[in-house]
């Protein structure tokens, strides 16, 4: 159960997809003209994310590694189609204001990222919580951006007009540049809060996952090229001052094997993108 809570925390704060990982920027910038749009987009993505995470996790031992991407897309696209029809039927106004961005959830990189880096390697229940955490993190991010943009650009919150702001609309915030500016300021605020928390002695795990060496929990791992490097550099035995001081008898051979292993792995991951590496990880987990 603890692990599930950790997944929720991870999605909402530590690796918030909007403010930390910067994933899914297309819907983030395009549909957040109002708070309602932000919530609608966030929740529909959450539903797809949870369902696809569970489905992919359930199928993780059946999907061959070589064709996992098309398989993931098929799963995601099926759920998106269901969500799309449901929204068209029950929330037609939201459906029309989100427009093309509903079908585009299929290629949302948060969903593919979670499928690739988490759901395909973990059991169903943690994957579900991972989806909920990531989805809610996305929803919170989009809603925040939507609220700020709606107040500044339109003088209202969730459609309710704020009377004192009637004459003070800044239409830039309803347009795309406003989305970039608001996102930038929110990320800056979040970074300040993060830094303050770290300074207060609550050490937060490294942002961006990658440097922590925990590639399984990192949703960037599918696109990340540097991970094997970081991974193996960290696994290298630390150079002992004694070894350096010793005349070359044992030390060179130890170093040589370590180096060879390192370069070999780097070349492998370099030549075949991340396939070879992931396959090994996958095998290890399947056993």
């Amino acid at each position, binding site marked *: 159960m603890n692990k599930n809570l950790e997944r929720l925390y991870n999605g909402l704060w530590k690796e918030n997809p909007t403010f930390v990982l910067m994933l899914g920027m297309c819907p983030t910038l395009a549909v957040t003209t109002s708070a309602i749009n932000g919530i609608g987009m966030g929740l529909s993505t959450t539903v797809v994310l949870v369902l696809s995470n569970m489905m992919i996790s359930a199928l993780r031992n059946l999907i061959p590694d070589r064709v996992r991407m098309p398989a993931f897309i098929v799963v995601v696209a099926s759920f998106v189609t269901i969500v799309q029809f449901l929204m068209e039927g029950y929330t037609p106004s939201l459906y029309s204001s989100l427009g093309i961005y509903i079908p585009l959830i299929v290629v949302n990189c948060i969903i593919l990222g979670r499928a690739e880096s988490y759901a395909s390697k973990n059991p169903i229940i943690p994957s579900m919580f991972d989806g909920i955490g990531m989805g809610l993190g996305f929803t919170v991010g989009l809603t925040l951006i939507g609220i700020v943009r709606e107040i500044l650009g339109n003088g209202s919150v969730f459609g309710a007009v704020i009377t004192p702001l009637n004459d003070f609309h*800044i*239409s*830039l*915030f309803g*347009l795309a*540049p406003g989305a970039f*500016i608001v996102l930038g300021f929110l990320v800056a605020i979040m970074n300040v809060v993060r830094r303050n928390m770290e300074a207060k002695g609550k050490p937060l795990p490294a942002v961006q996952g990658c440097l922590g060496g925990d590639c399984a929990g990192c949703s960037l791992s599918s696109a990340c*090229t540097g991970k094997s490097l970081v991974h193996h550099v960290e696994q290298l035995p630390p150079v002992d001052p004694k070894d350096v001081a010793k005349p070359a008898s044992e030390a060179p051979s130890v170093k040589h094997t370590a180096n060879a292993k390192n370069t070999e792995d780097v070349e492998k991951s*370099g030549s075949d993108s991340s396939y070879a590496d992931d396959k090994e990880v996958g095998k290890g987990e399947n056993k």
Partner: protein
Amino acid sequence: MSDLLKVSSSPHVRAKDDTSRIMLYVILALLPTTIFGIVNFGLKALLLVCVCIATCVASEYLFEKAVGKKSTIKDLSAVVTGLLLGLNLPYTVPVWQAILGSIFAIVVVKMLFGGLGQNFMNPALGGRAFMVISFAATMTHFEYDGVSGATPLQLLKSGEMVNTFDMLIGRTAGTIGETSALCILIGAIILILLGVIDLVIPGVYILSFVIFITLFGGHGLDSTYIVAHLCGGGLMLGAFFMATDYVTSPITPLGKVIFGICLGVLTGLFRIFGNSAEGVSFAIIFSNLLVPLIERVTVPRAFGIVKEQKPKEVKANE
């Protein structure tokens, strides 16, 4: 002379120029335009210009205080930004909009990118662009003598004739500082005599613009039309005071020429084929963005150095 000579390692001869002195020269050169604008449009114009300057200086001071940087308001660059922004507004703009525009110019365009010398576009024009997009209604509403009317450029665009003498003097509708071509030229001459700007960028800008409207303006070499286009709108103000901004214009000789041509062609495109009658500020902003590229391709060859042979491309391992 003894003041100029220092016993130290090179450089041995130092000029007295520093940022605040150059900014002071620019303010001095803008004075005729500012005074004319205030006389022309009344005290509301004075209020607007003062508000812009005060907000710019205050937001630079407060931002630097908030992030714990050394205060740089003494270099007067914020004053110049505020003054230029104020001169770029119609005098009917509400004060709160001018304040927001000034804050945007300083905080977002200038300070967030690292302060003076790091901004990628002219802060005053960035602030103006923000206001044109956000407050389109007030920013394109012009009055003259209390009567709302079209600017000469808008008249030209709709095919009517304009009085070029009035435009030269500045007795037309427009933003506070753009109407009088004469005052701007006086300021430009001051700047050139003081050695603050050189003529390359404004010269190439105006020349290429004239060529462009002669070719595509539909009036051929009609001198009234060309003079009206030159004196109308922000062309003069932009060419001499904003396109020549040290930070956002190229430093290479060839780069300056390319930059000027970009400006001229873009201004012509926006004015003749665009929706709105004016295009100087967006042309300058857009060209500002091209400056790093322009500088990269126009690095001059240092004397005595043979052009470096391109190293053979090593195949990347990835």
